């Protein structure tokens, strides 16, 4: 039996994996049982996951170093996998939780059609900062926190890549 700590979307799971027979695994995650069966073992492996309630066809691929990319119903998930122990017990430190930051980045590539705030302006959580156009849609980009606009990294008309820094908000809460 192998034990892992797996992180998906900042949530941590304790997973134990036991190979039942070739290509078949018995998995327990936070006490819940799953049966996992391998279908193909190409660059992207296919796995059938059976839970008591449903059967899902999934895909996975190991990415250096500790990451595994998983797809379920077309939805990609990035998991970071740490080995906790093989057969016995082991301890790794709890992952650090990221606190809500004032960095606003582009969720998608696109074009900035409007900058609605100025540097130094006070904004509240959920307040509109910019309008980003992508795939014909105008997306209102809002502030994740309440605070003051520290810097604006883009101008109207600019084309931005995914994850590009757009605005930084300085928290005014002390």
């Amino acid at each position, binding site marked *: 039996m192998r034990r892992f700590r797996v992180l*998906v979307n900042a*949530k941590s*799971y304790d997973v134990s994996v036991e190979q039942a027979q070739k290509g078949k*695994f018995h998995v327990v995650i936070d006490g819940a049982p799953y049966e996992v069966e391998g279908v193909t073992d190409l660059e992207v492996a296919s796995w059938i996951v059976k839970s008591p309630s449903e059967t899902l066809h999934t*895909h996975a*691929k190991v990415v250096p170093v500790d990451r*595994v990319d998983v797809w379920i*119903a077309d939805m*990609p998930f990035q998991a970071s996998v740490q080995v906790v122990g093989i057969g016995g017990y082991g301890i790794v430190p709890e992952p650090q939780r990221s606190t809500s930051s004032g960095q606003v980045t582009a969720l998608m590539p696109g074009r900035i059609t409007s900058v609605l705030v100025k540097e130094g302006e006070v904004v509240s959580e959920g307040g509109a900062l910019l309008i980003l156009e992508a795939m014909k849609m105008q997306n209102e980009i809002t502030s994740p926190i309440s605070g003051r606009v520290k810097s604006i990294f883009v101008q109207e008309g600019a084309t931005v890549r995914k994850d590009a820094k757009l605005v930084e908000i300085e928290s005014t809460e002390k």
Partner: protein
Amino acid sequence: MKTRLLIANRGEIALRIIRTCRKLGVRTVTVYSEPDQGSLPLRYADERYPLHGSTPTDTYLNIPKLINAAKETKCDAVHPGYGFLSEDERFVRACEENSLTFIGPSSTALEKLENKLEARKTMQGAGVPVIPGSDGPLKDEDSAADIADSIGYPVILKAVYGGGGRGMRVAKNREEARRFFRITTLESRSAFGRDEIYIEKRLNNPRHIEIQAIADKHNRIVSLGERECSIQRRHQKLLEEAPSVALDERLKKQISDAAIKGLEASGYSNAGTVEFLLEETGNFYFLEVNKRLQVEHLVTELTTGIDIVEEQLKIAETSNLELSQNEIRVKGWAINCRINAEDPRRNFVPSPGRVFIYHPPTGPGIRVDSALYSGCDIPEFYDSLIAKLSVYGSNRSDAISRMKVALDEIEILGVPTTVPLHRELMRDERFVQGKFDTTYLNEMLPRLMSTIYEFERIAAVVAAVQKTRNPSNHHLMKGHMLVSRWRAAARTHMASSR
């Protein structure tokens, strides 16, 4: 057919049009932007013509470039598909002036319907009921708010030259009416190249019902029955079916007749759709005319057996409709799921990128309209619709069962899509019973999110198993693009047979 056709569009709809043309022996020319250089329609068209540039304005919305493309390639007709210039009166006029047959209505009919305020007047004149709203375009934020106040909230701000659910926002109060004036104006300018917007009253939980019609140049019109399009998010349809559970025979006839009267009054020709909102009381109101082939036309093709693109081409060539109303039979049930490159986890933000594995479902009663292939790129410049998954069944529950199977089979790896949403819909009690309206989807989204949280757990399960099986991955570290399983299998086979 003698026609030589320029397809002024891209993606799945360009490919769909090419398929009918190939069947009829119509020669096709497809135009393409730089990001679309590797796209599938290019492979099946008889000729390709580059538009140079990436943005819609530089390419598929550029009238001079398109007209020039048609002339240089000696085309005599243009099919606009949907979106882009499909309903642009200036484009139709440019085609007419250059002796190109536009596959769609005449510029005069289009003009009558393009301006939604004018369309409302035409419909009222024909005795078709319309929704209460503003008489002219809105001037500024303040006048938008004032008119909204007088109509009563909630209201919808709409692009006067809009369509397809774009350039629309619902305002629940004065503050929103002011704020959305700006966004809607921007969206309208970017999507339709025109600023003007107007206001309509938002009805209480209506259904969206539309009639597919085909008209010839002598004002002979047939109805191919209704489509139910109430499953929407932010006015974007996500699922369509034909027929609708909400209509009895009497209501079907009333709505169909209203659609035909409305089209007659506008001198409409070619394929068109009249959209209505239906209240629970059975009252229905004219919404807009979609003056083109629609995204969801395929559900009607499945229930009537008619190839709508073929009819469009025939009417354009001969001016005459060969179909007559009494030979049209609506049989069985069809459902279409729109698969968009949008991330349901992040409020459906567009998710362009590379699809490294695409495996479409198939089998009895399944149709997939898509230009995807393993390794293709989904550019950020255009619409997020990447596939239409349709099924046909003998009745609604049969169709739902088939859709469930098809949604389990489809694989689009690389970009998040709306597939999980459709899977959830097929299991939802209200959807299965047909008890929904245009507000339903927002109500079921929290359930979708809980399924996605469950997916996170399963992702953790699979990640751990993958790591157990494959702790190192040296053979993957070469950095080249992943190949599809089919190609990988073929390579293995080639290697072993050598």
